[in-house]
């Protein structure tokens, strides 16, 4: 494993999404509320660079005409086809109903609890080491 420095922590503004190459791998790095996330920067569905996408949440509903925005900025919307990926797990989101009771407690949601979408974006563990955002890559 080699530790790669991606950026200085204070280089990132809140809710910034940026493409950073490390060890020859393009990464999509996002910072939300001080927490950093990294995904391999290629949508597993259509090949888009995910770093071109926007942060989003999940929208839940009790029925037609009813909308509730949940998990705001915990998802990344692919810049092309608009599929949403969970920043923490890389899981494509296909069944919000299965997660309704957990919608306000994202830290307890694990990939295995979801009815999964057909694709998973590859996640990379990312750490803050002092003033730097780092990843360990083989």
């Amino acid at each position, binding site marked *: 494993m080699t530790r790669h420095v991606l950026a200085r922590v204070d280089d990132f503004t809140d809710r910034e999404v940026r493409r950073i190459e490390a060890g020859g791998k393009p990464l999509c790095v996002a910072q939300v509320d001080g927490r950093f996330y990294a995904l391999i920067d290629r949508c597993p569905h259509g090949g888009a660079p995910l770093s071109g996408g926007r942060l989003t949440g999940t929208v839940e509903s009790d029925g*037609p005409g009813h909308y*509730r925005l949940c998990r705001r900025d915990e998802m990344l919307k692919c810049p092309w086809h*608009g599929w949403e990926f969970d920043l923490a797990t890389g899981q494509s989101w296909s069944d919000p109903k299965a997660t309704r009771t957990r919608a306000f407690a994202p830290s307890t949601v694990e990939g295995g609890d979801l009815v999964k979408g057909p694709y998973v974006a590859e996640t990379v563990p990312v750490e803050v080491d002092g003033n730097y955002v780092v990843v360990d890559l083989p």
Partner: protein
Amino acid sequence: MTDMLTIDADFHLPQAGVSDLLPYLDDYWRMQVVDRELPSMPFRLSSYPANAPHARNTAFEGLDVPGALDRFGVSVAVCSMLHGVAGLHNPDMRAALLSAVNDLVARDWLDADTRLRGSIYISGEDPEAAVAEIERLAGDDRFVQVLMLAMQDLPHGARRYWPIYEAAQRHGLAVAIHAGALYRNPPSVSGWPSYQYEDYVIQSQAFENILVSFLGEGVFARFPDLKVVFLESGFGWLPTTLWRMDKTWRGTRQEVPWLDRPPSQITAGRVFLSLQPVDMPGPDEVAQVVKHVGSTDMLLFSTDYPHRQFDGDDPMPAGFPDAALPAIRAGNALRAYPRLGRDPALAARVDFLEVTP
């Protein structure tokens, strides 16, 4: 064939003349109908000109209603009289004449042949009148569905129709949409075709939009027990429409979050389609469509008496797995029509139907 329970989802009664409706009208409407000479008018929907080849099937030649039921071994037929009065614009005249048609069907047909089940024929253009008609007739268990035409002035999922769906769901009535147009809109986005052949072909394209409308507007979420039946829609288009819905949904879910599963899963068990017309040319194509949908659970046997939809003598085309035939012939209809599903006489005959492929 005759020992097997067979439910015909699309069976048409000969259209009554307006003079035949007079006994079912009150004094005012009887006077109006006579003074305005409505009995001299044919009131035929332009989709089915009486002598046009698609309106006649040689397989039915010489067969009256009971004769057709006998001929095809039909145990129960969900029948309809697609009367042209639905095309009127005057909402009160239209409602009075639709009620008269429904009453005539009950007395002249449902009373006469116990194999027949009725449709509460309404116009979606006036939901208040439609709900009143449903409430008026819902006590008669022989009516098993509410019936509208495919091309109205708004797509069928629109909120304006929801009181109709609420009443249908509450009374255990399916909502059936039959091919045909009220001519409130051109049948395609680009206007009016020149030929009846073309008009006939694009009827199934209207059903694609109708299915998408029911999904997008959230009717299945809002009315969790509602069953929808498409009559004479064809079903060759179904797999690719579902594929596209599932794909579009992934990119547009935030707009329609009540679609909480892929659309193809939401429609399963909620939407049923009559067998005729089978548009596929042969058994290989029938089998391919079944493979692409992944199920035959949505198909309802139909003869479409007396219209021309099938060649030869048998409405059931080759190409379905043998194991699926009993369900197509009757079992699926018991799920599509809540009132048939809870009919004890039918229930007694369906134990063997629980095996579906």
